[in-house]
């Protein structure tokens, strides 16, 4: 018995040592200095390429997967002998966010990762995200391509910058010019005209809007956000505030009432519960006249597997009524590298947010670059006029605002998919909906 107890004690000790060995040392959030750097450099010279961990959801059928592949190939070509990227591929946005949250809870986030959907905030909260401002100041060339606007947009309340954006998002809505012509209408300038346009399209035998309330209710929420953001100054302020703490406002309630009408009378019949792919399919197959979405969708319009032939020729892009447009910067990439591979992780971050990546993602996925320093080639302009139109519309807009996905936490965004069906079927009214969104704000931890 004594022998068994001793054996068990040995096993427990071994496991304890193993666990303590795996525990990570606290990380400095400042750039590393002096002797540490020298020791690290000495180690690196003897141990081959330094590993940098990176997580991505831009794989498989993701619209940015081709750009990601080109970017990674180019990085490996340039730095492969010194830096070895250890990539974790996660098959969807949801899987990615859930995995990153779990890793954040155990302080084991990758060295570089996309800080979308609140992941950046978790890295800031657990103290692993590095302040990137000093590194930007050290490298004016990199800073030039990131741009002051993107830096300002992502600067935290404490004055630090915990992520670097990789693209700006300008989002209007696409409309089918042939259907508009047949219905005798043009893009609306007011929301009243917008609703009457929907009625005219319906009378002409077309489904006005391609929508989906499932997942993050992307297309419907773009309409909702545009209604709020262009309603008046208060609505516009709400759509530029982060995080929003109160949705129970007249602008939100009024917009929700309009959305109820749109989902009931002017959307594809399977919009409730459908996912984004359904809405995109409805629009690309010319079964609906409008869809709210950004320039990254342009590639789908010329893809014969997704769209009817020649669809891109029959499409236009418009400002939301009251001259509104979404204009924001992606949260971008966060750096959580430890001191021993900081230099290499920073090299990758610079490459991922630098000119080559921005240009690659513009050309392959329609992601708009952060500054005008990335010039659009004449060939690109001729090939993708809808992307160019998005940029032109941004300069004409009177109201600019951010998407709900950026200004609200995941608890709020998750609530939309549950509440839209209740709103449409009359189980709750717009005010209750708005109150439930406000309640969701306080559920987020």
């Amino acid at each position, binding site marked *: 018995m004594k022998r068994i107890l001793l054996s068990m004690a040995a096993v427990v000790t071994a*496991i304890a040592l193993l666990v303590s060995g795996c525990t990570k040392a606290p990380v400095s959030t400042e750039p590393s200095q002096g002797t540490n750097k020298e020791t690290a450099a000495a180690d690196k010279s003897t141990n081959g390429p330094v590993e940098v961990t990176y997580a991505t959801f831009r794989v498989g059928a993701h619209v940015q997967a081709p750009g990601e592949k080109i970017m990674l190939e180019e990085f490996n070509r340039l730095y492969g002998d010194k830096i070895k990227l250890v990539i974790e591929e996660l098959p969807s946005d949801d899987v990615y966010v859930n995995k990153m949250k779990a890793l954040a*809870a155990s302080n084991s986030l990758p060295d570089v990762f996309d800080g979308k959907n609140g992941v950046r905030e978790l890295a800031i909260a*657990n103290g692993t995200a590095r302040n990137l401002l000093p590194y930007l100041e050290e490298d004016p060339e990199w800073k030039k391509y990131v741009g002051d606007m993107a830096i300002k947009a992502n600067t935290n309340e404490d004055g630090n910058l915990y992520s670097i954006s990789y693209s700006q998002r300008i989002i209007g809505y696409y409309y089918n010019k042939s259907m508009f012509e047949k219905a005798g209408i043009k893009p609306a300038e007011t929301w009243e005209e917008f609703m009457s346009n929907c009625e005219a399209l319906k009378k002409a035998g077309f489904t006005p809007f391609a929508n989906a309330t499932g997942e993050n209710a992307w297309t419907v929420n773009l309409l909702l956000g545009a209604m709020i953001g262009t309603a008046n100054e208060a609505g516009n302020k709400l759509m530029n505030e982060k995080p929003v703490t109160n949705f129970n406002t007249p602008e939100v309630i009024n917009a929700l009432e309009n959305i109820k009408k749109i989902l009931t009378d002017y959307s594809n019949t*399977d919009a409730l*519960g459908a996912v984004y792919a359904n809405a995109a399919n409805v629009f690309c197959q010319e079964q609906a006249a409008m869809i709210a979405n950004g320039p990254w969708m342009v590639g789908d319009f010329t893809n014969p597997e997704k769209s009817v032939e020649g669809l891109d020729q029959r499409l236009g892009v418009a400002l939301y009524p009251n001259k509104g447009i979404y204009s924001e910067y992606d949260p971008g990439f966060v750096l959580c590298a430890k001191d021993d591979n900081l230099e290499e992780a920073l090299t990758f971050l610079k490459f991922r947010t630098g000119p080559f990546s921005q240009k690659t993602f513009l050309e392959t996925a329609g992601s708009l670059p952060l500054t005008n320093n990335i010039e659009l080639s004449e060939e690109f302009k001729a090939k993708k006029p809808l992307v160019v139109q998005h940029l032109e519309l941004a300069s004409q807009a009177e109201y600019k605002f951010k998407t709900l996905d950026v200004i609200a936490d995941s608890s709020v965004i998750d609530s939309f998919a*549950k509440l839209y069906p*209740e709103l449409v*079927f009359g189980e709750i009214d717009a005010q209750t909906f708005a109150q439930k969104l406000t309640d969701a704000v306080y559920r*987020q*931890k």
Partner: protein
Amino acid sequence: MKVKKRWIIIFLTPAVLLFAFVYLTSLYILVTTSFTDLTAGGGGNFVGLKNYIELFKPASEFWSVLKNNVIWVLLQSTVHVYLGVIVALILARNKWYTSLVRTIYMLPNIISNAALGMLFIFILNPKFGLINNTWRLISGNDAYMQNWFMDPKTAFGSVTMTWLPYAGITAILVMAEMTSIPDSIYEAAIIDGASQLQINMFIVLPLMRNIIGTTTILAASNMLQKLDIILLTTSGGPGTRTTNMPMSIYRTALIDNNYSLANAQGVFLILFGLVAVLLIRKIYRMNENILG
């Protein structure tokens, strides 16, 4: 005897260690963190019963989640098991259709829940789904449109129908147990003039008590684990109409980032499961010998 004891220890140690490190440690962490303020961003300070009070306060959504779960456990423990037993009794008669029906009835049980979920999304699709199209054909009403999963009046029933009728596992287990009944018992009953119904009611079913109890436990506990098919079909909506406890735990942990509140729900889920199992064992008197 000493050698035998040593071998018992050697063979049991890996399983015990595995259980201790995988389950017991997890359980310990689950229970202890349910009394803290642990979130995805940090925390972990002791807060006493705060999470449990939050869970059971009158306005908490957890009440409707709990109600859904109780209804599903009851339906699965009764209707689902009843259907399985009936199918087993019919198929045990070994007719020409037995093999075919048994295979078809088992199909939903061997398909992955993800595939089954997708299947139902298509069958119940309001626009092109089989159900709506069939009704349009029968009624002649081309405008008929029912969103089965998203209409608050039909959502719960629609989700329930993705698992309730498919009791293939129950049927197979009951049929297997029925083969252990000696032929002499059937022969004696037939000689005494018992009808097929009487044989089933007074001989087969009483002898099947333990296996029916076991399948009831399996069916009930299955309802405490369901997540994938709900996530695929309704994500727990509209509102909380189709949210069960696993779905609520998933949301609280991974959407709201509130790990400690999710863990409090996890502790309650385990207790709920234990009570359900004990109750079923008691109802079916599973500790007692069937033959008295």
